[in-house]
C-alpha cells in the first residue's frame, strides 16, 4: 500500500475516533442551545438554527452556579496542593532515605491502590462525623490529601535520577530540602504538572462524597449543585445542559493550558531523555 494511502487511512481512523469522543460534548452544547421542548424530538436536531445563548446565564443564576463553582475551586485547589505536598515528600523518603520498615510501608502505600474507593466511604464518613466535620471544608478535602498513586508515581520518577546527582549535591552542601527544591523538583516538573492536573480533575469531578458529607448549599460542590437544576420543568432541560457545560469549563481551560505538561508527564521515562 502506498504511504500516502496508509497515511490517509490512519487519519480516517483518527477522525472517526475523534468524532466518537467529541460527539457527546457536541450534543451537550447543541442541547444547551435548543429550546427545552426540542431536545427530546426525534430525529434529534444536530444543528440549532436559533441558538438560545440565554440558557447559560439562566443556568448561572437559577442554579446559583457561582457559589458552587467557588466551593469546588477551593476544595480542588486545596486537595491538589495538599496531595502534591504529601506525595512528593513521601516519595522523596521512599526514593532517597533509608529507614526501618521502608519496604513494608511502601507496600502499604501500594495496597491502598487496590482498595476500591467505595469500600472506604462508610469508614471515612464515620470518621468525619466523629471529628464533627460534617458539612465543612475539611470533610471535603482531608480524606484526599494522601494519594497512594501519587507516592508511587513520584517515587518511580525520583528513582530515575542518577545517584551521582544526589552525591554531587550532598558534597556541594545541599541538604534534603534544598536538594528536593533545587534539583529533584525542577527535574520532575512534567510529573508534578501531570499529577497536579489528575488530582485536580479527580477532586473537581467528585460527586458521591460531597453529596454525602454536605447538607447546605454553602458547602456543596458544583457537581452536587447541578442536581438542583433537575427540579426545573421538562421544557427547561436546555438549562441543565448549559449548567453541565459551565461546570466542565474550568477543567477544559485547565487542560488547554497544561496540555503539553500532561502529555509529557504521561510519556515521562518512555524514551531516554
Amino acid at each position, binding site marked *: 500500500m502506498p504511504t500516502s494511502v496508509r497515511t490517509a487511512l490512519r487519519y480516517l481512523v483518527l477522525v472517526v475516533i475523534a468524532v466518537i469522543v467529541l460527539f457527546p460534548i457536541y450534543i451537550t452544547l447543541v442541547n444547551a442551545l435548543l429550546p427545552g421542548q426540542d431536545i427530546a424530538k426525534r430525529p434529534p436536531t444536530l444543528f440549532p438554527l436559533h441558538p438560545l445563548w440565554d440558557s447559560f446565564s439562566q443556568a448561572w443564576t437559577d442554579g446559583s452556579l457561582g457559589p458552587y463553582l467557588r466551593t469546588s475551586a477551593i476544595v480542588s485547589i486545596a486537595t491538589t496542593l495538599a496531595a502534591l505536598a504529601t506525595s512528593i515528600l513521601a516519595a522523596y523518603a521512599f526514593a532517597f532515605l533509608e529507614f526501618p520498615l521502608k519496604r513494608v510501608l511502601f507496600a502499604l502505600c501500594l495496597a491502598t491502590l487496590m482498595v476500591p474507593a467505595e469500600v472506604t466511604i462508610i469508614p471515612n464518613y464515620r470518621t468525619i462525623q466523629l471529628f464533627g466535620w460534617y458539612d465543612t471544608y475539611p470533610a471535603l478535602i482531608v480524606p484526599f490529601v494522601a494519594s497512594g498513586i501519587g507516592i508511587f508515581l513520584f517515587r518511580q520518577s525520583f528513582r530515575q535520577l542518577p545517584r551521582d546527582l544526589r*552525591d554531587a549535591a*550532598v*558534597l556541594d*552542601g545541599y541538604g534534603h530540602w534544598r536538594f528536593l527544591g533545587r534539583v529533584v523538583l525542577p527535574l520532575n516538573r512534567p510529573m508534578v504538572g501531570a499529577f497536579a492536573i489528575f488530582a485536580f480533575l479527580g477532586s473537581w469531578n467528585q460527586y458521591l462524597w460531597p453529596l454525602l458529607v454536605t447538607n447546605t448549599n454553602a458547602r456543596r460542590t458544583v457537581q452536587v449543585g447541578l442536581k438542583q437544576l433537575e427540579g426545573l420543568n421538562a421544557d427547561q432541560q436546555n438549562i441543565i445542559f448549559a449548567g453541565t457545560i459551565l461546570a466542565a469549563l474550568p477543567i477544559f481551560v485547565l487542560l488547554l493550558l497544561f496540555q503539553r505538561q500532561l502529555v509529557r508527564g504521561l510519556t515521562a521515562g518512555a524514551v531516554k531523555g
Partner: protein
Amino acid sequence: MASAAVSLEAIEKRFGSTVALVSLTLTAEAGEFLILLGPSGCGKTTALRIVAGLEAPTAGTVRIGDQVVNDVEPKDRDVAMVFQSYALYPHLSVRRNIEFPLRARRVARDEREQRVKEAARSLQVEELLERKPGQLSGGQRQRVALARAIVRDPKAFLMDEPLSNLDARLRVEMRAELIDLHRTTGTTVIYVTHDQVEAMTMGDRIAILKAGLLQQVGSPKEVHDRPANEFVASFIGSPPMNLLPGELLGEPGLTIGVRPEAFSIDPEGTIGARVTLVESLGHEYHVACRLRDAAGTLVMVRLSAPAVPPSIGDDVQLAFTGPLHRFDSVTGARKEEAD
C-alpha cells in the same frame, strides 16, 4: 594552597555479607596524585566514597589533614568529587552548575562571579557559561564538572573514573590537562581508574586493589618493575606479563613472570614455540606463541617495529632479554631473594 593529606587507616567496609574493603591503610600525601587502580568491583570506588563521606566505613579511621573525619558531614570535609557521569545538573546552565557549590556555601555574589570566571577560564569553558549541559559534548561536560570541582578550592579532589566516558583521543587530551591542573593547583588528587595506562601516566603513586585488598602501593616505575605479586604483575603492563610455570626453567614451586618485551625471537634461544597470532600496531608487533611444553603455554612477545615479524605457524626459538620475575606459585607473592 589548601591541599591536605588524606589517609585511610585500617578501613573495613561490608555491605551485608559482601566484603568491599579489607583493612585498607593508605595515605595520599598533601599535593600528591594518588591512583587507585584495580578491576571492577575491587573496592576502589568504595574507598573513594568513604573519603568523601558518601559511605561510612564499617571500621577504621578516615583522616583529612590532621582531622579525623569519620563523623564529619560530606559537605564539611572540604573535598570535591568528579564523577564518571559528570553529574551535572541538567536543568541549570553551565554557570549555575559551576556556581552551585558556592551558592550552597552562601559565598557573596561578587566573589562567586569572580571564582566562577576563574574556574571557567582555567578549564576553557568561558564561552559555554550560558549553555545547558545537554548542549555540550562529552569533553566539554567533563571540563565543566572539573570547573565545578576546582571552584571550591578544596583540600582534595576525588575523581571517580572521570575519563571513562570519553573517546580515546579526548581521553589522552584530558589526561594531559588533568596533570596540568594538578600541577597548577597543587591539590591532593585521589583518582580511581581501571585503566592502567591512565594510572601509569598520571599518578605520582599507584595503589592497586583486588577484591578489597591492597596489593601494592608504589610509583608507576616500582609497580611495573617490581610487582609485589602475580596479580599486580599481570594487571600492569600491556600486553600483560607472561606467567610461566617454574618447571619450564627448572625452578619448580615458582611462577616466572616475563614481560612481553623481555622476550626476543632468536635462533639461539632455548625455548621452542609456534607462532599463533601476529598483531601489528605500526610501531610494534604483538606476537602470540604457543610453547612446546606439555601444557602448550601461550606467551605474548612484543617486538619493536624495525624487527621483521614471523608469520603465523612459524616455528621459532625464544630468548630472554629482560629481567625475570619470580613469584611463589602457591601464594603468588614476589620472591625477592631470587632477583
